[in-house]
């Protein structure tokens, strides 16, 4: 397993009396693609700025490969930043922008020329070296910003929502390109985004944050399939939530009551006792929509259908008024697949595909 490259311990930060980061611990592994994911105001950008050295933490420590980073000013930290708005120097050419960091290191001219040319080739900008930033498209400016940061061969590259200014198609393309760059360069990437899709598709590990607290740290698959709390479950992807009460515990199985319907489910890692409230979580793609005469499932009515190309998303109102989102892949062989609006159906799922979380007081479970 990879070594820890940068270790964040007990970092807290306040702005005007408001806590932005609350005693945060995080280990960034050497060579990984780590994404900080969270809604705006969760502290992800502040954490990035602390790593870069633009801000000072109120307390806690930052250790990079055994060296205490706190007293090191940004210009002497072996890490570089790709800014959200690129922050290219408008008075310098593309070449000048990329060469800037190496000039500051007082590298010999030949070496600067060689390294800048190499890195511009890597981001396919070698033809545009003499252009000024304002003569470039958004995507090209983005590449310059990346080239300018990686040419210094940092231990760690910090990326602050670098793709948020690009349109959807270009963003997808840059996501792939960033992944490729990261593989080729072997640099550790710390990527900040509020886009969960982006986080899942690009990262080795995702750190989900909320209100300055780390909610969960894990692989995209762990985050999506085994969320540790309701916030993560709701923030990453769509989730259908079924509050349930434990009726009986039989070894590896438990009986729960979901809205009056008894279900026999697999027991999860947390301890359960009879009478306890739990949340049963189901992703839309785990939901099965059955005909109204099926012998199991929750009865409801289709109230919305969205054709998504590869899937058909249906919104179903259960008889008790709750809404369930189902996302089904097309099955040409299933004549019953297409539902009409207002058609009565039953909603179920494949046993074992559900996820369960204990319901604690902090969960605002009612406010779904």
């Amino acid at each position: 397993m990879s070594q820890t490259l940068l270790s964040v311990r007990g970092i807290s930060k306040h702005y005007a009396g408001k806590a932005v980061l609350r005693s945060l611990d995080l280990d960034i592994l050497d060579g990984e693609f780590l994404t900080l994911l969270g809604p705006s105001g969760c502290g992800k950008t502040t954490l990035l700025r602390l790593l870069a050295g633009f801000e000072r933490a109120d307390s806690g420590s930052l250790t990079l490969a055994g060296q205490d980073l706190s007293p090191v000013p940004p210009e002497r930290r072996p890490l570089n930043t790709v800014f959200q708005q690129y922050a290219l120097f408008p008075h310098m050419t593309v070449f000048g922008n990329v060469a800037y960091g190496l000039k500051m290191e007082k590298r010999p001219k030949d070496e600067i020329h060689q390294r800048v040319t190499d890195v511009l080739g890597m981001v396919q900008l070698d033809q545009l070296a003499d252009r000024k930033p304002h003569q470039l498209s958004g995507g090209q400016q983005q590449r310059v910003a990346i080239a300018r940061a990686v040419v210094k061969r940092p231990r760690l590259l910090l990326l602050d929502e670098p793709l948020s200014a690009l349109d959807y198609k270009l963003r997808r393309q840059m996501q792939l390109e960033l992944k490729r760059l990261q593989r080729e360069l072997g640099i550790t990437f710390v990527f900040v985004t509020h886009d969960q899709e982006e986080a899942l598709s690009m990262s080795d590990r995702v750190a989900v944050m909320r209100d300055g607290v780390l909610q969960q740290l894990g692989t995209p698959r762990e985050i999506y399939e085994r969320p540790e709390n309701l916030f993560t479950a709701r923030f990453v992807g769509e989730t259908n939530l079924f509050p349930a009460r434990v009726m009986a515990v039989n070894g590896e199985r438990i009986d729960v009551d979901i809205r009056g319907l008894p279900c026999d489910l697999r027991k999860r890692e947390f301890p359960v006792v009879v009478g306890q409230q739990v949340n049963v979580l189901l992703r839309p793609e785990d939901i099965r929509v059955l005909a109204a005469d099926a012998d199991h499932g929750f009865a409801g009515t289709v109230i919305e259908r969205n054709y998504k190309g590869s899937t058909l998303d249906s919104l179903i109102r259960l008889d008790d008024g709750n809404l369930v989102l189902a996302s089904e892949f097309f099955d040409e062989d299933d004549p019953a697949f297409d539902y009409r609006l207002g058609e009565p159906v039953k909603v179920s799922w494949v046993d074992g595909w559900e996820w369960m979380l204990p319901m604690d007081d902090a969960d605002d479970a009612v406010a779904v």
Partner: protein
Amino acid sequence: MMLTMPSQSERQPFRTAVLILVWSWLLLLVLLPNLLVIGASFMSRDPSDFLSMPLTLDNYLRLVDPLYLQVFLHSLYMAVITTALCLLIGYPFAWALARVDKRWQTLLMFLLIVPFWTNSLVRTYAIKLLLASNGLINSALQSLGITDAPITMLYTEGAVIVGLVYLLLPFMILPLYAVFEDLRRELLLASHDLGAGRAATFFHVVLPLTMPGVIAGVLLVLLPAMGMFYVADVLGGAKNLLVGNVIKNQFLDARDWPFGAAASVLLTLAMAVLLLAHRLSRRRLGEEGET
């Protein structure tokens, strides 16, 4: 001037009217008088009609006469010192102004603008009252026992420069403030991030990006500093003349209009050179620097 008549102008009467107004204003009150001055500078002096034929270059040749050349150089020297002082005070002031809290920014801007509500001639006399031998500063120094006799401050080169700096400082600060407002903090962070310390960031990023403001400020200070004759009249005494005094004297006292016109054409040419430098510096920054 970027004003061009649109092809569909006949369909927009208001727009056409405004354009005609602006163009007539510029043609009648800016271009025409300047052409008259240029024309006058090539004519001969006439005691009764002010101007007469034949056309001549004598007026320009007289400008290099040691007597006038000396006045011109001394005026330039005082203007350069004034500009340097304005830049030295105005640059950090504008930087700070662009960085402080928005509430403070409004107040500071207000304080910067307030003096414009009083005529600059009146304010020049106010400075005279401060600097005079029996003025406010000398009385204060004497009553505090710091000096025994009044210090001569009025009618010196220093007095003229103080007056010019006082009157012209806002003209340096305002364009500088504009460029500092546009200077994104992220660019400074990016520079630090790439390994540049404070000094390197200043010379490689801040200074080049604020250069249009510096040149605009110099434009607005250097030339007026050579022309504000009443400052030299009130504070400078006989020895500290500005080019503006020479021009004024030729028109009003010596009644030599052609020579006065030639001197003022010289100032206009100097302005044109500076404007050209300003344009070049902005073009270097590209369109992004223009906005």
